[in-house]
């Protein structure tokens, strides 16, 4: 390959890393106070016996699974296992519900049957326009769950009225939205444990 042919490829690589090393700073500087509050709220739910129930579509289904494994099996030795599960792992129930032909149904129906009021619902949507994620968060709220949304773009139809904690990565680039979501749920998981060490703050 000639240098001329290589130049655009090098530019793609540099641009990707430039975005991934700039937007996170803007996002976390703005959101740090809300993140700390969300950690505290989640810690109180776990303390009451609540579980984390996570869901999202497409690539974000893998994030629902990723955040769950972090809580259940912490990589930091000595941290306690906390209950978390991804609704997307149950492909039998998901496909069964989707065969019913109502695309907004699967996650909210899973929550309706499975969730308890002390639980935490975490929904992912890269543009805030996933009807099934929106419906599930609304269902969770009605049932009294703590609700969190990790969104991208302009946050779409999942508003501050829909959820308790709404985090929007203001970008239409799906990769950077997802990467910032990943750091965000890692940070929530790492720092929930800080509150866990102070029982007095969990009552």
């Amino acid at each position: 390959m000639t240098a001329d042919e290589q130049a655009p490829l090098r530019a793609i690589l540099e641009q990707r890393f430039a975005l991934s090393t700039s937007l996170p700073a803007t996002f976390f500087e703005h959101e740090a106070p809300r993140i700390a509050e969300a950690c505290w709220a989640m810690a109180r739910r776990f303390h009451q016996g609540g579980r984390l129930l996570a869901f999202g579509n497409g690539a974000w289904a893998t994030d629902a699974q990723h955040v769950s494994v972090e809580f259940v099996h912490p990589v930091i030795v000595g941290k306690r296992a906390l209950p978390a599960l991804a609704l997307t792992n149950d492909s039998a129930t998901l496909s069964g519900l989707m065969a019913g032909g109502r695309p907004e149904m699967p996650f909210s129906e899973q929550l309706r049957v499975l969730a308890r009021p002390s639980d935490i619902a975490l929904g992912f949507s890269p543009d805030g326009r996933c009807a099934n994620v929106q419906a599930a968060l609304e269902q969770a709220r009605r049932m009294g769950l703590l609700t969190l949304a990790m969104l991208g773009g302009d946050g779409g139809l999942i508003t501050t009225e829909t959820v308790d904690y709404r985090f929007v990565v203001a970008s239409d680039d799906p990769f950077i939205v997802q990467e910032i979501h990943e750091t965000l749920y890692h940070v929530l998981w790492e720092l929930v444990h800080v509150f866990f060490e102070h029982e007095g703050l969990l009552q």
Partner: protein
Amino acid sequence: MTDRANNEANDTDTQGSEYDRLFYPYLFAGGRVSLDEVLNQVQHSTLEKCRDVIALRRATLATARETLLAAAAAMARAFAAGATLLAFGNGGSTTDAQDLVTDLLHPPVAHWRPLPAIALANDIAVVTAIGNDVGFENIFTRQIIAFGHPGDIAVGISTSGNSLNVLRAFEQAKKQGLLTVALAGYDGGKARRSPAVDFCIISPGDHIPRIQEAQATVYHALLELVQAHLAAEKVRANSDEIRR
């Protein structure tokens, strides 16, 4: 705010784990902890973790720029020749493998070409069957034997670079003539030294969550580069067609 007021009224918390005393000593300096102190320190930690991942992504690009470009070129050639990509890892790295696979099969960019890929942890029946019958170190190897063809691509993700089932899968893949690409953290571990690994892309960090976040950028960049190669190839093929 009511919750917060209540907590400030009884902020008599003095315990905390050894880990917290080690990593968050400021929480215990005064012997008593208030909610506002903890919230402030959690904010501080959040920003520190953000700085850490940015630094690790910069270090990854500096360390692995040429390897990344070469791996993407080799993967694009393999896809152009009809390859299927097989992706694998453990824990959070499994979900990253699944993420890479869905971004190939069902690309997030409209004009990208959907490409064949399989995440080897997706079939929980197969994973538990192999794990139970022949051992967890073989869960991917056995599937490489079943699915791998010469010219296919094996992508293994391991934050330590030392996961036995990932290393074994690379060895089997190499035997069968697959292109092998490793994503590893720390110093690359055994994956970096394995003769079965064609390209080892290292994110030189030492904290697993940050390594995974840097690795997400790595495979996102690989996806973009592969698609750019395939698009350029298509343009070249079309202009050859026109010349004829």
